[in-house]
């Protein structure tokens, strides 16, 4: 069942908030009728996708049109291909669909448009939704939805440069995750968590890999990061894999509208049982695998070359994922991933042994404990692991034999009653600490009681190879009430003195009162 969406959500503090996504979402949600959010998602996101590529196409076409005299041909597909923009055939252009929005045949027209785009753009083959003609979809509402989406980002060049549609797409993705509740949340990592991971790793160039990529949020954020830091998207190559077929298609669309050229394999597949990138050695792994997955088919994978640090238990995929990541890291690669907190301390089914072996191999670089309630799908608190194949790594300082622990459980702001978010400031507090520690920041690293601690392997051994940051960072320096002990005791003693004498007076009073009622004491 779809959960009711909260509408009084505060403006995102760390987001690229446009201000109108919320209204748009509400309007679109109103047209949902009695459709399931999971199903409706594909209807809406498909249309936004269509609008997006059509807008991008029209923009370039207008430019080519203007340059006609100097020999540009607005109908030349190669021009579009060169600019990394999808060629949109006539029947699939937004203006055409919008003009027919009120026709009862609109559903079929959209399906045809999707087919037309797929047949002209091989990368999108089999990716786009083509179910708009079906009976259950109210054609009047579909027409209204088209009108609504038609109002986004129209014409305005500035809007387009701000990637309005991309952001609306992302906003809708996250809202759908929330509306679908647990089911949806499985493939939506909150943006602030992704952003933290990305800024920790700072993937400027090289191969980026996410073997459980969901709708592709890690890649989108990586691209944003590179752009913000003045790099070129072409400097990284993106590899991903996703087992859920509809999510896989969502990822393809999500990356397509941003022009990210990613290798997500020929189709959806399970990374454990059918690794689509068997020879990949990535410079960065960014991932948020499904927490504590007990249904990963581990019984069929008792022996595998990936299990270098121990055989992961059949009942929990956490350490299977971890070893899959490590297996795919290049000799200087770094992985950052999200896991449930249990992974830091569990000693059941050999997990403790695997963790111990990883620690003794000096792979663990940094651990971050995050506050609870960051996810749509679950309340459980999660942590970030950072694993480096080579901590001597000449890019940074030599940090062999040390692990950085960050306890960020007190950070974050509640955005509604049940969801928390890390603000831009929170994220930087975490990432700056790591970068300072690792030595790629001018600022010098310092242990802060209650927040961060650089611990030796010996120390970790003395804690039984448990990686919970709370164990290492120590207690926060209790903010003293500023009252010196002496003064405090003097004040308390005086208060007590007063209370004792008042107590005697009251006792007398009560005695008298009861006597007044005829009860002697």
């Amino acid at each position, binding site marked *: 069942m779809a959960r009711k969406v909260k509408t009084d959500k505060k403006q995102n503090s760390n987001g690229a908030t446009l201000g109108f996504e919320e209204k748009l979402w509400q309007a679109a949600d109103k047209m949902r009728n009695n459709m399931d959010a999971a199903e409706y998602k594909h209807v809406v996101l498909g249309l936004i996708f269509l609008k997006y590529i059509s807008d991008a196409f029209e923009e370039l076409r207008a430019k080519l049109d203007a340059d006609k005299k100097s020999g540009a041909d607005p109908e030349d597909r190669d021009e579009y291909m060169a600019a990394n923009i999808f060629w949109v055939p006539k029947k699939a252009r937004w203006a055409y669909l919008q003009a027919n929005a009120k026709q009862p045949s609109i559903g079929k027209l959209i399906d045809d448009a999707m087919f037309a785009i797929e047949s002209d753009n091989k990368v999108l083959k089999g990716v786009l939704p083509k179910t708009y003609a079906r009976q259950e979809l109210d054609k009047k509402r579909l027409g209204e939805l088209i009108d609504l989406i038609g109002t986004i980002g129209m014409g305005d060049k500035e809007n387009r440069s701000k990637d309005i549609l991309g952001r609306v797409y992302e906003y809708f993705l996250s809202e759908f995750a929330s509306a679908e509740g647990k089911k949806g949340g499985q493939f939506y990592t909150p943006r602030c968590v992704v952003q933290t991971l990305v800024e920790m790793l700072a993937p400027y160039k090289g191969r980026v890999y996410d073997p459980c990529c969901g709708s592709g949020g890690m890649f989108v954020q990586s691209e944003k990061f590179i752009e913000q830091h003045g790099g070129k998207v072409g400097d990284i190559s993106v590899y991903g894999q996703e087992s859920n077929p509809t999510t896989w298609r969502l990822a393809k669309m999500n990356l397509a509208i941003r022009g990210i050229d990613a290798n997500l394999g020929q189709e959806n597949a399970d990374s454990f049982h059918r690794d689509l990138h068997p020879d990949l050695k990535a410079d960065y792994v960014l991932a948020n695998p499904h927490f504590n997955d007990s249904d990963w088919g581990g019984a069929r994978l008792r022996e595998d070359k990936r299990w270098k640090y121990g055989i992961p238990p059949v009942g929990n995929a956490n350490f299977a994922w971890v070893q899959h990541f490590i297996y795919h890291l290049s000799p200087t690669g770094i992985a950052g991933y999200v896991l449930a907190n249990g992974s830091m301390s569990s000693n059941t089914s050999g997990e403790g042994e695997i963790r111990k072996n990883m620690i003794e191999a000096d792979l663990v670089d940094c651990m971050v404990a995050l506050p609870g309630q960051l996810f749509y799908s679950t309340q459980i608190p999660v942590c970030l692991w950072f694993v480096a194949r080579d901590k001597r790594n000449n890019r940074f300082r030599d940090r062999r034999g040390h692990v950085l622990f960050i306890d960020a459980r007190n950070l974050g702001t509640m955005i509604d009653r049940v969801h928390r978010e890390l603000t831009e400031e929170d994220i930087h507090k975490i990432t700056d600490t790591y970068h300072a520690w690792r030595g790629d920041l001018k600022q010098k690293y310092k242990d802060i009681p209650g927040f961060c601690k650089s611990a030796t392997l010996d120390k970790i051994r003395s804690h039984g190879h448990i990686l919970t940051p709370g164990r290492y960072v120590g207690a926060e320096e209790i903010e003293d009430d500023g009252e010196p002990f002496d003064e405090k005791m003097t004040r308390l003693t005086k208060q007590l003195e007063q209370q004792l004498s008042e*107590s005697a007076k009251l006792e007398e009073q009560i005695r008298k009162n*009861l006597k007044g*009622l005829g009860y002697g004491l």
Partner: protein
Amino acid sequence: MASKRVMIRIGDIGRVVTGKTPPTADTENYGGKLPFITPSDMDGNKYIYRTARTISEKGAKPLKNLHVPPKTVFVSCIGSDMGKVGMTRVESVTNQQINSIVVKNGIDPDYIYYNLYSRKNEFQRLATSGSAQPILNKGHFSQLKIILPTIAEQRAIARVLGTLDEKIELNKKMNEILEAMARAIFKSWFIDFDPVHAKAKGRDPKLPKQITDLFPDSFEQSQLGEIPKGWRGETLGSILELAYGKGLREQDRRLGYIPVHGSNGQVGWHDKKLVDGPGIIVGRKGNPGIVTWSHTDFYPIDTTFYVVPKQKELSLYYLFYALQLQDLPSLNADSAVPGLNRHLAYMNLQVVPENKVVKIFDAFVIPVYKKIFKNEQEISILAAIRDTLLPKLLSGEIRIKDTEKFAEATI
């Protein structure tokens, strides 16, 4: 001696106000000086000293007409736990679950408080059921009738009951002070090592000589960093055991005097103890790491651990404060249900002073705890007297002699 009694509507004894919640989306509406009272703040005490939230000037402005002055009587009128009554100490705002009566001159607000306080069951009965939330709306609330004796008699009744409540409150406050004293001393001696620092620097520790003499005058290195010379750093596991509580379902509890403890304090009563008191309870599931004290024999249920000291010379009092400062909640490691793993807790380190210092600490704390316990017992007795007298006084079954004189004399 018959005095005149009249029956009037609640709506006629003063202005009835239903509260309102300022938009929570705007955080600037909160965090000011004005208390914001909600039913969860109503803890059974007559006056509310702390509210979970307060309202800022910005949030208060649009609610101008809903501010209520001190001595306003308020009743929770929505929700399963309705019919709770309280009285404002200062100007306040309530949320929409609460109806308030700003009692007009000539009627004693304390009398109104006690009258409504005695009618919780009636409120709950009157609430509209059928909808998911029981509710007693403002119109319905204003129509309820209330018996008013003469003003002199109102005051006399309020005075008798009021003194009992004042004493209850005083005891509670006194316990807070006593508790704060014990904590301050523990922190000064065993966390900040004030007396050792003072001696090391040749300053006066401002303690009697026989106590000062017990503290070392220098520090030494340990696995815990610098600690007073001769003291030890030990793991929690070597100084105490966290023993498992035992399940006791609610329907299996029988009326008795043994407090039943859950992970966040007392949850009920039973007639059989599991553990001899006094004792320490540590939350295991639900509220992992929360440390509570029991003055008497007790029954810790299976969501808790109770503490069994392993070293005779380390008293429960010392362990209680030590555990509170260990930050056990941060060890919460399980994923689905928050839980405290005792093997993790056992690895924590604790400074253990020399035996003679612990003894001095105990000599101070034990009488303090005895007094705290006495005060708590007194509170139950005073409350029992109040609740027994209350219906009789209200019905006129018990009369206060010479009400006029009584009221005057006690004001």
